[in-house]
């Protein structure tokens, strides 16, 4: 599903990812971990082409990301659901609309039912008409998850999905992400919270100072 081959990324003169190579198979749930500033978010951004690699090759599904034309980038992104660390909710849209926009962009039909179903999964159906600013951090995070899953993407990228959440909410959200994965969606979670993967049997990719230093399946 996702292949990195000798990927290098610089920010100005700083090498943030150094010769990264790995492969994530379809249906896997993989944790990408490492301390803050280690390059986890950059790695996710390379997958949905918010950043471009300076060297190496990236393949996501049928897309050769490295050589992708600008006009093809939206179609790559439509295959991916992203749970952003900073939510990226549109403040002047209701919860319903924030989720629906993902389907509108994809020109899908039966939007109402799909959105309500997604909101039901994240237990936010009753907040459909609310605006993001009146929601708690946990609720906003769940709206982002609903937006990421509503279009039933092949791949979900979650960037620090439990940051700033209380332990109970964090557990509920991780449970939800696990359920999504169990339905066949490939999931990549970038996090520095060891608690999230302490007892996991899933694969963990560790990045430190831009180096991939550990690949393990516990």
């Amino acid at each position, binding site marked *: 599903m996702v292949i990195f081959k000798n990927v290098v990324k610089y920010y100005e003169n700083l090498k943030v990812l150094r010769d990264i190579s790995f492969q994530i198979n379809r249906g896997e749930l993989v944790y990408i971990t490492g301390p803050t500033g280690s390059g986890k978010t950059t790695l996710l951004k390379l997958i949905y082409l918010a950043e471009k690699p300076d060297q190496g090759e990236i393949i996501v599904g049928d897309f050769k990301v490295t050589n992708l034309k600008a006009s093809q980038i*939206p179609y790559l*992104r*439509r295959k991916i659901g*992203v749970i*952003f660390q900073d939510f*990226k909710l*549109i403040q002047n849209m209701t919860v319903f609309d924030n989720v629906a926009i993902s389907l509108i*962009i994809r020109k899908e039909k039966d939007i109402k039912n799909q959105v309500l179903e997604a909101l039901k999964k994240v237990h936010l159906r009753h907040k459909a008409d609310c605006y993001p600013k009146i929601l708690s951090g946990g609720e906003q995070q769940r709206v982002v998850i609903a937006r990421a899953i509503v279009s039933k993407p092949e791949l979900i990228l979650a960037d620090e999905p439990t940051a700033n959440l209380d332990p109970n909410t964090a557990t509920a959200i991780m449970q939800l992400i696990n359920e999504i994965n169990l339905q066949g969606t490939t999931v990549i979670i970038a996090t520095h919270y060891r608690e999230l993967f302490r007892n996991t049997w899933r694969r963990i990719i560790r990045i430190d100072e831009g180096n991939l230093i550990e690949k393990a399946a516990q």
Partner: protein
Amino acid sequence: MSYTFRSIIQGIYREKWINILSVLAIGSSLLFLLITAILIYNFHIATSRLPELFSLVVYLKDNLSQEGIDSLVKNLKSREDVIGVKYFSKSDALAEFKNTVKGAATVLEGLDENPLSSYIEVKLKKDYVSAKSVENIATEIRKLEGIDEVYYGERIAETIYFLKKSSNAVSVFLFIIVSVVVIFISYSTVKILFYRKKEEIEILRLLGATNTFIRTPFIFEGAILGILGGVAAIFNTGIVYLLLKYKLGTIISIFEKIVLPWQIIPLTVVISFVLGVVGSLIAVGRIKG
């Protein structure tokens, strides 16, 4: 309600002050253009009658026989550029002169004989009333037998021709200037609206929105700004027209006859729509994806 439609309505409502200012600016520019266009249109109506009043005066030699005069009149009438020919004998010329200088009849006292020449008044077809054309016709007539002199109001012909040409040039020039102004206003407004929604646009891009999806509402907004500006201009033009005709017309009678061509209304809407779209297309095209 579709995203595009809602985005347009929201964009217009949320940034209402910028949009109102833009509509007023577009409206003012188009108002200026419309009033100029109406004045030029009315000027054309007025000047279209001037060539009918224009004539060449062909003075005849005193010794020209009646046969020669008849032949000359016949010759002039047969010209394709001539619409009318009228002969004035020496006595007609004197009567005409006396009539003209009624108050100064003493000027003619002491004259034993009529000093005035007989002449033929030649009226030209409208299309031939231009400085160059009249000069050519006069030169040709001068070559005919029995002609003493050909007089024509060179300056009148030149002025009519100049005013017509220059009013056309002014119309084109103003149209270009106002078009550029309207495009620029629409461009600037759409660009401001685009930057104000930068965060939302960034999110949409990350979710997989294409450039077309993102840009379409802005192009519609530009079109709506243009149309509203056009409507505002038409409305204000109507007011100015009524003021000119019914208020100023009572003081300066020329304004009483001013005409407002109805075709200007749909034409303004179409032009303002096109200019609005062009401005917004340039704006969204220049913002990198």
